[in-house]
């Protein structure tokens, strides 16, 4: 028994060095060559960081495309979903009020145009994307608020749409931050 205890202690110490120093430091070191140097890719505007490429952020003004509802108000230091069950009455009321808000601010759209992702909270609360349909219903509002041609906005949406992986796998999506940056640059 005593032999196993001593072997366990020594083996643990050796493995701590291998698994907690050698392995992660190697990855961190090689990761320096990745975009964002292994610290997350940043997006800058006029030399200032305005966000991370992968993280969604809150947009509420009419001249920006809005992202999905977030259970944590896009707090990137405390990710979480709503964890609301599908039959929860309070949750269903919340969804109804999101539908009403979208209908109010996006003239000309019908209820049946609204895709589920625009009225449901994401898993992380930081979802950077919306569906193509989610962008489509906002085009008229954004164009009006910015006083530009709807066609132009439509083009920008198309340019910022990410097609399925390799054209075959998974859904397509629109990155909200990149789209809004492109709008600001017009």
């Amino acid at each position: 028994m005593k032999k196993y205890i001593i072997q366990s202690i020594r083996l643990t110490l050796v493995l701590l060095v291998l698994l907690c120093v050698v392995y992660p430091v190697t990855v961190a070191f090689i990761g320096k060559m990745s975009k964002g140097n292994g610290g997350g890719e940043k997006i800058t505007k006029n030399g200032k960081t305005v966000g991370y490429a992968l993280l969604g952020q809150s947009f509420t003004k009419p001249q920006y495309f809005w992202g999905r509802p977030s259970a944590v108000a896009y707090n990137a230091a405390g990710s979480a979903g709503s964890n609301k069950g599908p039959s929860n009455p309070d949750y269903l009321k919340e969804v109804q009020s999101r539908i009403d808000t979208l209908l109010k601010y996006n003239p000309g759209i019908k209820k049946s145009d609204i895709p589920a992702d625009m009225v449901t909270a994401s898993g992380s609360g930081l979802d950077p994307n919306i569906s193509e349909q989610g962008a489509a219903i906002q085009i008229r509002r954004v164009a009006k608020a910015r006083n530009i041609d709807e066609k132009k906005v439509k083009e920008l949406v198309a340019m910022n749409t990410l097609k399925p992986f390799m054209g075959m796998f998974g859904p397509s999506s629109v990155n909200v931050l990149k789209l809004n940056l492109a709008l600001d640059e017009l």
Partner: protein
Amino acid sequence: MNTELTGIIATFLLTLVIAIPLGKYLAKVFAGEKVWTDFLKPLETGIYKLSGINIKEQMNWKQQLKALLTINILWLFYGFFVLIFQDKLPFNPDGNPAMTPDLAFNTIISFVANCNLQHYSGESGVSYLTQQYVLMFLQFVSAATGIAAAVVLFKAFRDKTTTELGNFWEFFVKSITRLLLPLSLVVALILTFNGTPASYEGKDQFISLQGDTVHVSRGPAAQMIAIKHLGTNGGGYFGANSAHPFENPSYLTNMVEMMAQTIIPLAMIIAFGYFIRRKKLAWTIFGVMTIGLFMLLLPTLSSELGGNPALAKMGISQTTGAMEGKEVRFGPAATAYWSTLTTVISTGSVNGMHDSTMPLTGLWQLLAMMINSFYGGCGVGLLNYFIYLIVAVFISGLMVGRTPEFLGHKVEAREIKIAAIITLLSPFLILAGTAIASYIFTSHGDAAWAVQPKNWLNNPGFHGFSEMLYEMTSSNANNGSGFEGLGDNNIFWNLSTGIVIFLGRFLPIIGPVAIAGLLGAKKFIPESAGTLKTDTKTFALMTFAVILVLNALSYFPALALGPLAEYFTMLK
């Protein structure tokens, strides 16, 4: 064809393409045959030397278990002390506080047991030191513990009669050097180059396009996410686990993470067959498990892709499926596939919130964890399945009126007793645990705990009951996912699930290893016309029936009160 469906089909096929050769490779590694990774031998020799281990020393099953338990208990003490003193230790750039003793108790058992149930949130609850030197460390070694225990079982059936089952330390170290570490390196780098943070920089702050100040948690996440999947651990770096865009940046990384959590459990089945020179048996087991996987996956897909009926009534469009708690870049199909994988294999990582999935999806998730052996966790999945096999052998033996045999060894009273205890343990822990929790919720709602029992549940009605049932089921299965709406960081849930995880981990390791050790030592009976063959379709069907009947009898009432009741109320 729908690109969301082609995505999951491609993922499954790619998994097979990797897992099958990996299984053959593992069989050779553990048999000590020549393989291309033998250039790592000097590293292993160095580890043995520094640890004072002589791998030529043969152990019997009792010694194997002693070594296994000794080192696991050591990790419990080591981790517990780091967790309660993490605020005073270095590598805490975000200045996160120490854990309370009950939370530390839960967390350390959970990680030693390969469960990774998390009652804290990664961003605010742990330091970088804890993330790497305790949690990630345990993700490696707990997976290696499971694999090594399974190899002990392999050993018992390789030779005709034997009590010498190899050296535990050798299996354990090789699981790390020849399997977990190299694969983790590959997966971690794929993640890093797709955007997951890997450096040691602390929190960042920026002003968003709209003018809000945003704080961003970062840190060496890629390293941990690689092993959390390969080792079927599931404990995420960030609170939202693999739904977080940093943990799982794109559809590609999502495919990689799904493959990473499936390949080792699959490879272990193949390795078993090649190791004991009964390939057909391995393919039979693989067949039963895969059919089981699909029987859970298909209805899950159908209920998620159908969308939420309550939202459909409101008149919006749910063309792709239910979206609450899911991410747009993965879509409902890949999230449904993940939810099945992570519950059949005891990973417990999530790329979407299970609490928000449809009632029937919740049912399949729960059932997958109750069965806990359609592939199952690293090594332990096979150990769980072994218990079902022994029960099936026993029942078949009774049916034909012959002494039951398994691979040439008589299965007698002692082995059956152990198998029966392990079989009964799961329903006992899950149902008794949920019953106690429900009692406290209804009768002692005002208890002065960190979260008062009356405020435990995030959702009313039947779904609330499912939250408690899920927590206990996940703990017993060493899964670690949760219906995360549950207010679980308080003394009741920390202690109760801690105990359930501990018993649900170690007894199902001790039991099968003991049975295998006892059987392996018995006289070998050559095959004859009267032998019950365990690698036939008939026997596979028998095993499948045993699994279904045992689980249906144990859990149907509880499942009827939770997800089924919710489903039928939503139909109204």
